[in-house]
């Protein structure tokens, strides 16, 4: 009788644990990605999940490095080549599914992965910068430990994370965070962001 009670208790614990566990990409969506982008894409998402799982309990910096490292392995390609459009903000599923994208796509995927890992939105910003090296507009993800601290730069061109002061090759132009701007039940914040959110809601892959 005691054994049975223990078994039931264990079963209940297992069930509740399973329900609490939420994958970055849900199973149903993963199957669709697999169907569309074949088995390698599915594997990429598996590795992403593995990477995220490894740092889920780590510090913010560990999370930043893991995510930055993982996505910087994706090949750079212009929107025109991948999507036939001059400028397109891809969902994380499109980005990793196609395994290529431009600077905004890196920023988006890193942002949502870090959000999955529990980093608060007010610490993360999409930053429009000018790359003095390539002399062209660019976007990076910036991490502010506190609102007034020096941000860390997550860039796809420079694979390592540096404080902003170390990135002399980048001139900041404009910071924004759609989630922060949407505070107070606003339906709109930033046109590109709003479109991206709509695509994510529609599970665009």
């Amino acid at each position: 009788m005691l054994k049975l009670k223990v078994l039931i208790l264990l079963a209940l614990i297992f069930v509740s644990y399973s329900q609490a566990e939420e994958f970055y990409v849900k199973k149903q969506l993963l199957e669709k990605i697999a169907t569309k982008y074949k088995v390698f894409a599915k594997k990429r998402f598996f590795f992403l999940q593995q990477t995220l799982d490894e740092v889920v309990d780590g510090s913010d910096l560990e999370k930043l490095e893991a995510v930055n490292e993982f996505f910087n392995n994706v090949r750079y390609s212009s929107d025109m080549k991948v999507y036939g459009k001059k400028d397109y903000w891809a969902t994380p599923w499109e980005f990793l599914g196609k395994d290529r994208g431009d600077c905004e796509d890196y920023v988006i995927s890193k942002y949502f992965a870090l959000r999955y890992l529990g980093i608060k939105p007010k610490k993360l910003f999409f930053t429009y910068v000018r790359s003095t090296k390539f002399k062209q507009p660019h976007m990076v993800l910036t991490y502010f430990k506190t609102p007034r601290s020096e941000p860390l730069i997550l860039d796809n061109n420079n694979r390592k994370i540096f404080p902003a002061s170390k990135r002399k090759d980048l001139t900041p132009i404009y910071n924004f965070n759609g989630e922060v701007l949407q505070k107070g039940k606003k339906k709109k914040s930033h046109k590109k962001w709003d479109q991206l959110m709509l695509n994510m809601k529609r599970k665009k892959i």
Partner: protein
Amino acid sequence: MTLFKQIAIMLSIFLIIILSTVLTLNFQSANQSVQDRLYEDAKNTATSLSLSLGSANGDISMMSTMINANFDSGAYKRITLVDVEDAILYERKNETEVIDVPKWFLNLVSIKAPIASANVSAGWSQVGILNVQSDNSYAYMHLYRILKSLLLSFTIIAIIGLIILNLLLHAVLRPLKEVQKQAAAVIRNEFIIQKKIPHTKEFKDVVLGMNAMVTKVKAMFDKGNEELQQHRELEYLDKTTGLKNRKYLIDRLPEYLKVDSVSKGGISIIVALSGMIEANEKLGRRDVDKLFSEIADIFRHSSRIYKNSIVARMNGTEFTILLPDCPNEDAISLANNIYTSATDLIEEYELNNEETFISIGLYEYSHMDSIAQLLSHSDNALAQAKFNKTHIHLEKAEEAVEVMGKEAWKLIINQAINKNRFNFTSWAVVDAKNKKLVHNVLSINLTLDKHTSYSYAKFMAPAIQSGLSCDIYKNVVHMLLKTPDMILSASTYSLRLPSEYLEMPETYEEISNLLRTSASTLPFKLIIELPDRMVRKDSKYIKLYKELFEQYNIDIGIFEFIGESDDYQYLQDLRPVYIKGESTYFLTQSTQALSALRLITDSIGISLIAVGVMEKQTLEELTQKHITIIQGKATELIEF
């Protein structure tokens, strides 16, 4: 409510609901697009201003100046710059709210200008968030203009739509209107055949059905009319002379012998031809018939000048000439002329005037005589004439011992007219078969004081003699319409109006004015009875009265009917609710004549009423002839 109205109301409500819904949706959409526009404007400002603010490197005074420049140049409600901890760094807001729209519109429509936000940074570091809210007064004015133009255009659309709807409904339901007219005509016993057959199948079937029905009923009426005409010729005409016969005289006499007869009396002449057997032997039947015919022409010719005179062949050798209002002297002169002319004629036929001669008995009748009295007195006069040398004898009326003289009556009646001393009394017309009251017939009494009252039969004869009958009727009609409360029961009442009153030039106008003011308040249903003699003449007044009474929902009845007309179309034109005839008239009609009359009356919904039914036996005889609605003393025998 008519079908047209029901459909029109339904479709109008439907149209208005649709238009209102479209109007509301249009307005909501306009409202939404105005709010979107407000947001887009605010967002554009927020983004461009936040980029500019970035160049200030966190210098609050510089940023405030930039915000002021933007705020003052555009239509904004509020621009706020908050730092990363949500503390306000700088704020501008428009305090004055001057919105040039009516207050009700402000209460009705709520426009909340959305707030657009943008991050502000200085280099890599964050400054805060810029919130921009556009001024909504412009949006209110814009929306108000939209609402006005929407209301105007939708009102125009609604009016045009309703007009088109009305025209369409009229076009679609026109056949139904025609059907309705035809149905109403059937109810009024009119025979309208609709020639324009509608295309809509349902209407077409109804019209064809009604046409068939109306055709059949009309055929019934025509057949009855034709039969009755033929019958009238057989029933009332003497074939040899073309004169009326005894039956005709008997049927007509009640009209002359009644208290309220137009004529107070006159001369009844019986002419008898003696020696006709010898004449037959001498001349043969054909020539004797010719002789009769020529003698008849003499009678006809002699009586022509007397209005309402009757010449009838009573039997093989006797003729009656009834001359209302003919003085004795004129009658004697006329008799002499007839005698001379007839004697000359007999001589022309080479007959012996010792053997073949005429005798003329004259009787000075009074309208108070009964038929039997008139005939027996006339016979007496003839018997006397036969023994006279001149073969002419006048029997004068017995001087009636009058309680009151003519002048005394005149005084009383005038007094009654001036002081309005008439009051109504009524008696019942009863359906003996169904044992129920059909209507009440109104009559009048003359009440001088508590103890002195005269019935209609008593005062009407002297009134006619004094020429006051029309004044009495004028008084009575006024009393009936102006003080209908005198008649207590709220049932159906009939009032008989004589032709001499109706044909007075001013009567129509008087009745018309009275009805205009009082008809709607009458507490009972009124039937006006008109004399058959007047209506069958198609007098110009009849059409006027018919239209007048129809207008006020007053039915028409016919009295003193003896089926004398050549054509009964007038019954269809007048459409009375009933025909009243003397019980003797109905009883003396043959079965064929009565069924022909029934065919006519049934096809146009007219009841037959026998009046003067005094005894149970008469009632039974009438019932056998299917005349079951009666008026007279016998109604008291029926319990209902």
